[in-house]
C-alpha cells in the first residue's frame, strides 16, 4: 500500500471521504512526513506549498471578495510507525473573502513520532474563516503533537475553529493558540478531546479582544479515562469598550485520570466584560440517574453522556 493510500483510507475516521481527492471542485493538500503527495487548487485560492528537508512550508491565500464554496482539505500525517513532520503554513484570508478549511491529521500506525504544526492566520476586514482540525491516531499512543497557531482577526472578521481528537490514543498533545481580535471581530474556539491510556493533554488558548465590540468564546470539552491527564488554560483579555468574552471548560474524569482547568480573565476597560465557567469531575450524577431511570445500565448511560459532550 502506498503512503498516500495508507493516509487516505483513514479519512473516514475524521469524517471525510477519500473521493474528495478526485473532485476537481475541491482544493486539497496531502503531506506525508516532509513530502507533498498530492495537491489541487481552485479559482480564488493561491496555494504555494513546497517541500524542504525538515518541513513542509507553504502559504495559502484566499483572494479578496472570493467565496470558496467547497471546503479546502489539508491532510497531513505519517504513514509509518516512526518519523517526524513539521508543517509551517501561513494562511491569509483577504478582505471580505470566505472559506472553510478542513484539516485532517492522520497517524494511523504511529508509535514513536512527532508532528508539529506552526501556523499564522491573518483574516482581513469583513472576511470569514472556519477551520476544523480533526485528528486520528491509532491505538499505540507514543506521539508528540504540537498544533500551535497565531491568529489575527481583522475589523468585522469572523473566525470559527473546531479541534477534535475523538478516537485513538495520542501520547502527548500540546495545543497553543493565540488569537487577537480587532474591532467588531468575532472568534469562537472549540476543542473536543477524548484521551485514553497515558495520554497527556496540554491545551492553552488565549483570546485577546483588542477592538471595540469584539467578541470571543473559548469552549473546551475534554473526557479523560485510564491514566490520562489534562492541563487546560483558557485566557481571555478584553481591552476595549463593548468587548465581550466567555470561557467555558468542562472536563470529565474517569478511572485514574486527572485534570486541571485554569480560566484566566483580564479586563482592561470599564465597559468590557468577560465571564467564565469551568467544571471538572465525574459524569453528572443526576444525568446518570435520569438515564438509568429509563433502563440504561451505568455503562450505557456514561457512554451516552460522554458522546453527547464530545459531539
Amino acid at each position, binding site marked *: 500500500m502506498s503512503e498516500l493510500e495508507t493516509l487516505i483510507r483513514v479519512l473516514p475516521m475524521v469524517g471525510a471521504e477519500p473521493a474528495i481527492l478526485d473532485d476537481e471542485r475541491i482544493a486539497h493538500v496531502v503531506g506525508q512526513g516532509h513530502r507533498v503527495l498530492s495537491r489541487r487548487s481552485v479559482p480564488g485560492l493561491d496555494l504555494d506549498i513546497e517541500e524542504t528537508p525538515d518541513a513542509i512550508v507553504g502559504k495559502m491565500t484566499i483572494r479578496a471578495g472570493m467565496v470558496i464554496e467547497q471546503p479546502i482539505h489539508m491532510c497531513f500525517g505519517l504513514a509509518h510507525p516512526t518519523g517526524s513532520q513539521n508543517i509551517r503554513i501561513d494562511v491569509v484570508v483577504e478582505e471580505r473573502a470566505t472559506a472553510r478549511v478542513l484539516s485532517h491529521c492522520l497517524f494511523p500506525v504511529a508509535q514513536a513520532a512527532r508532528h508539529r504544526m506552526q501556523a499564522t492566520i491573518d483574516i482581513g476586514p469583513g472576511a470569514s474563516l472556519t477551520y476544523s482540525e480533526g485528528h486520528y491516531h491509532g491505538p499505540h499512543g507514543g506521539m508528540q503533537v504540537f498544533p500551535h497557531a497565531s491568529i489575527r482577526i481583522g475589523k468585522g472578521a469572523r473566525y470559527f475553529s473546531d479541534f477534535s481528537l475523538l478516537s485513538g490514543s495520542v501520547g502527548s498533545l500540546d495545543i497553543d493558540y493565540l488569537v487577537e481580535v480587532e474591532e467588531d471581530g468575532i472568534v469562537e474556539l472549540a476543542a473536543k478531546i477524548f484521551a485514553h491510556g497515558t495520554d497527556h493533554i496540554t491545551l492553552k488558548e488565549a483570546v485577546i479582544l483588542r477592538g471595540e465590540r469584539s467578541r470571543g468564546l473559548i469552549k473546551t470539552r475534554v473526557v479523560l479515562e485510564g491514566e490520562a491527564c489534562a492541563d487546560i488554560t483558557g485566557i481571555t483579555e478584553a481591552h476595549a469598550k463593548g468587548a465581550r468574552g466567555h470561557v467555558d471548560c*468542562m472536563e470529565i474524569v474517569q478511572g485514574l485520570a486527572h485534570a486541571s482547568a485554569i480560566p484566566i480573565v483580564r479586563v482592561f476597560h470599564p465597559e468590557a466584560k468577560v465571564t467564565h465557567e469551568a467544571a471538572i469531575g465525574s459524569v*453528572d*450524577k*443526576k*444525568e446518570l*440517574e*435520569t*438515564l*438509568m*431511570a*429509563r*433502563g*440504561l*445500565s*451505568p455503562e*450505557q*448511560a456514561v457512554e*451516552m*453522556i460522554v*458522546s*453527547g*459532550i*464530545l*459531539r
Partner: protein
Amino acid sequence: MNRLSACMMQTCSKGVVRTMTVPLLDIRTLTFLVGDQKILDRLDFAIHPMEIHALLGANGSGKTTLAYILMGCDGYVPTAGTVMFKGTDLLSLKMYERAKLGLTLAWQEPARFEGVTIREYLTLGRAAVNPKPALAQVGLDPDRYLNRQVDKSLSGGERHRIELASVLCMKPALAILDEPSAGIDMLSINHIINVIRAIKDNGGAVLLITHQEEVAAIADSASQLCNGRIVCSGDPAQVIEHFRGRTCVRCDGEVCGYVRA
C-alpha cells in the same frame, strides 16, 4: 383524629377496586431517617395496576424523598420497611433494574444533556420506539423539536414536557411523576392531564406528586403526606379538601409548619 380516621376509611370512587387486585406497588412501614430526623415515618400504602394515585403534601412533607427511594436514587436507602413491586422486592434492585421491571420517574427538575438530541433521549437506542406521537401528546411539534438538544436551550416548561414524553415512550407499569405540571403554563395543563391518562390507557399506573388540585383531581385515589406520614387517604376530592384545610390535619402545623394564610 376522628376526622383523620374517617378520611382513611374512604374507598376509591373511580373504578379501581383496590381490594380486588394484588397491589402493583406495596409499601409497608417504610422509614427513612436523616440523622435523628424522620423524613418518612412508617409509611404504608399501595398502588394498584392502572391506578392514578395522587400524593399531596406541603413542602418538606417527604413526597420527593419517597419518589427517590422508590426509584433507587443514590443516597436514598430506607432505614426500615419493605417495598414490593410486581411481586418483587424492589429495594434489592439497582436503579436500572427497577426501570427494566417497569418503574420510572419523571423528575421535578429534569437534567439537561449537552449534545443529546430529543430524538435520542426519547428512544434511548430502542429502534422500535417512535417518539413523534409522544412529543405531539405533550404539545410539542415533532418537526421542530426532535433534532434539538436536551440542553440549556430548552425552557423549563419545554424540558418538563420532554420528560413526560420520555415516560410515555417507555410505557412503564408505574410512572412516578414528581410535580409534572411545574413550569407549565395554565393553558397547557390539559396536555399534562392527557399524558397522565395516556399512561393509564397504555396499561400503566401513576404515582402523581403534585400541588395542583386540578391535576390531582384526575386521580383515582389520593393520599396526603405530612411530616413523613400518610395522614389522609381515599377519594381525591376529599383528600384535596383536607389539603385545602387551614392547617395540617395531623399536627395543626406545629411540626410541619403547614399553616395556610
